[in-house]
């Protein structure tokens, strides 16, 4: 592959190298360059070619339980709008709001209790009944009579978000090399020394591992380890019909599924219209490794759940379906921080299905840690040291 943008003089010794040109890598590169570092981004494939390229573009505060991840999500949601200002938009960022519904008595009780706790943490969560739901979503099934409206939930087009951030990086003198496969991460007594790729060796003291589902491979190359594994998901895409649905609407089972440790298929419909006119229907979750077969029985479940929320979808045409591999850690928390074994190697990975939403705040944490500035929150819950501690015990 090639380097389209010429070769800046720092190419052989950038201040920092970000591995991974997905949305997390792009956000890290943008923030590091904003702090004055010369940044080089490497990716073995094209920009946004991994999980970012298969993402719906969720920027959610509604699906997190109070705790470190919700704090991260709340900051990140606002950071997206700041980034949009900073880079001039162009990635379909939209504060559309989310609606979480429940149809069972137990589910309603659980949803009400979760939303109360989220409110205490500072999330805007409005209880809505049958009548309000109809005003917000006229085509919602009449069987749905209870939900929580989260005006803070937002959406973007994640591939464009990554590309737009990297465009600004290049304008600031940074660089992006597509098709650069990392072969080795060399170290000396200080820590990380250089990154060897099929397109040459680049000297640096700071490497950010933003390779998502493949982050374990990079950790291993550096002589460390990260327990990140793929969790497969399918998304259905319809013919233009976005006028039917204005918010991101999902069943509260979704929150339970996100947090579930079960390997079998879990699915609860997440339905939303997009700016491009299509309706996206997610989101199945399975742990089957990098198995890429398209399984119609899973698509069927997604279709049935979406129709049960919006019966009008029965006659809407399905046009495409695609799958992606979410990067998940055993405790379902992202991995953000310096590797306990390798000085100079920083991880920004393992965001599971929330990588698009959490990217800007992740980048802020990485940048404050790298530049020894005060972070906006205590990030110890995300430290990669939590895995080595388990290993040692």
């Amino acid at each position, binding site marked *: 592959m090639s380097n*389209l943008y010429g070769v800046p003089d720092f190419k052989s010794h950038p201040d920092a190298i970000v591995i991974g040109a997905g949305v997390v890598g792009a956000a890290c590169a943008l923030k590091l360059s904003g702090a004055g570092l010369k940044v080089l981004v490497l990716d073995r494939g*094209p920009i946004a070619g991994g999980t970012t390229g298969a993402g719906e573009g969720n920027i959610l505060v509604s699906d997190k339980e109070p705790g470190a991840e919700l704090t991260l999500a709340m900051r990140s949601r606002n950071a997206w709008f700041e980034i949009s200002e900073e880079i001039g938009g162009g990635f379909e960022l939209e504060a559309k709001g989310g609606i979480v519904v429940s149809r069972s008595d137990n589910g309603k009780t659980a949803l009400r209790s979760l939303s109360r706790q989220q409110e205490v943490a500072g999330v805007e969560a409005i209880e809505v009944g049958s009548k309000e739901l109809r005003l917000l979503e006229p085509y919602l099934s009449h069987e749905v009579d209870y939900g929580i409206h989260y005006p803070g939930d937002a959406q973007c087009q994640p591939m464009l978000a990554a590309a737009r951030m990297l465009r600004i990086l290049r304008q600031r003198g940074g660089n992006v090399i597509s098709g650069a496969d990392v072969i080795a991460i060399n170290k000396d007594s200080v820590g990380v020394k250089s990154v060897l790729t099929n397109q040459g060796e680049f000297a640096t003291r700071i490497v950010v591992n933003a390779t998502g589902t493949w982050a374990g491979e990079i950790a291993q190359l550096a002589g460390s380890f990260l327990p990140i594994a793929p969790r497969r998901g399918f998304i259905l895409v319809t013919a233009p019909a976005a006028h039917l649905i204005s918010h991101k609407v999902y069943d509260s089972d979704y929150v339970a599924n996100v947090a579930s440790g079960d390997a079998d298929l879990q699915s609860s419909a997440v339905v939303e219209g997009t700016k491009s006119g299509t309706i996206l229907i997610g989101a199945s979750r399975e742990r089957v490794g990098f198995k890429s077969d*398209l399984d*119609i*029985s899973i698509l*069927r479940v997604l279709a049935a759940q979406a129709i049960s929320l919006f019966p009008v979808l029965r006659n809407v045409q*399905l046009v495409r379906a695609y799958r992606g591999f979410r990067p998940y850690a055993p405790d379902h928390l992202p991995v953000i921080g310096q590797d306990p074994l390798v000085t100079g190697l920083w991880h920004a990975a393992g965001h599971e299905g929330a990588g698009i939403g959490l990217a800007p705040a992740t980048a802020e944490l990485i940048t404050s840690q790298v530049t020894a500035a005060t972070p906006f929150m205590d990030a110890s819950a995300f430290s990669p040291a939590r895995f080595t501690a388990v290993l040692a015990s």
Partner: protein
Amino acid sequence: MITIIGGGPAGLAAALAAGESGSKVLLIDSAPRLGGQYWRHLPENGAWGKQEAIRHDFEKGNQLRQRVAQSVNIEVLSNAHVWRASPHDEHITLHLLVGGVGRTIDVKNLILSTGAYDRSLPFPGWDIPGVMTPGGAQGLLKGNYVLPGKRIVVAGTGPFLLPVAAGLAEAGAEIVALLDANRLTRWIPKFHIVLANRAKLREGLGYFQTLAKYKIRQQRGSAVIQANAGSDGTLESVTIATIGRNFRAKAQEIIKCDSLAVGWGFTADLSLASNLNLKQDVLEEDKSVFVTVDEMQRTSMQNVFAAGEITGIGGHQLSLTEGKIAGFAAAAQFGHLTDVELKGKLEPLLAQRKKERKFASALISSYPVKPGWQEWLAPDTCICRCEEVTMEQIQDSITELGATDARTVKLFTRTGMGMCQGRICGRAVIDIVGRESGINPTIQDYISASSRPIVTPLPLGILEHAPHIE
């Protein structure tokens, strides 16, 4: 039971070869009547009127259909769209939409003969009403007995333009111009191949006779490089240019017309082959993708055969021959033909196929599509019609956003994400991205362009009722 998908020349021949050897056959076709694009909407006995030039082929198509109808071994499922083929260890699940109703069939032995469709190149004005493919124009004429217009320009490249122009002329249209971008001189080094395929020569001469009757002269080395709309938004004229061997436009003139049929050969429909992960390859000469098959038309997947245009574009005669070979070979697998019988049947067919493949490859080198066509594009030319993506947007996604391949351009601009799933613009986008980025597309880029997990759009309500377990 042998299941055949696609009822064009290859599928008909395969069904008859297998069925008449004693195998039970299920022939699945998406059209209301068998015949494929080639014999699409073939008129019933005697109804083809004045179309002497193609009468011989019409008779042949009708004969094949009658034999299929008479065969007790062949069951035909028409109006059936296979929207997904899922491979499993011991069988393949076919998901169908039959007359608007969902249905699933598990099959063990399959012959794929899904054919081809017109290849289009984007150019300024190609989205104006009145511009269509030659196949589209022929479909209107044969299927609905409707002329697409009164004053028609037929353009592009390839021998298929001749029967289309002849058919339109016989039906009463004025062919204001018949153009082919390639010059006849490309044939000179291959004339011995033409002489070895006299049926082809006779067919071609027949069309020229019809055209001569209506005083239509084919202009070689010319192309329509722009379509122009009138005040009502429909086609008013086309800009015609003399073009060089590399398709660069030279002298130009404007010709008034109300319809334009323009096509650049054919693209194989490989969606189902991709569903099954069949091994595919790219022809070096024109970068067309085809399913790789062995001597007996067997694919990389056990018990799956492929025949006709999906194994390489070659016309209906080659499709018939390949269909027969696949049908006999599949029947032999069930013991309906002994080894000796199979050998006897295959021997003449293999020789025939060899000769016809030579002719097919001569066609490909005589009617190439050269990269100069990209110079006809303007920044505001629509490239992806479904998603309304312009040339400029594609260029921006490369220069501004850093896309380095067609897939990334698709993710950034939505090219190929619309209703046609890149059937129309997919190949053109790969060529454009290769040229604009300076990075040669990979073989995988070409093959991926025909990957469509969902082969045809279907209502979510149909998917909802698909079986729980495949």
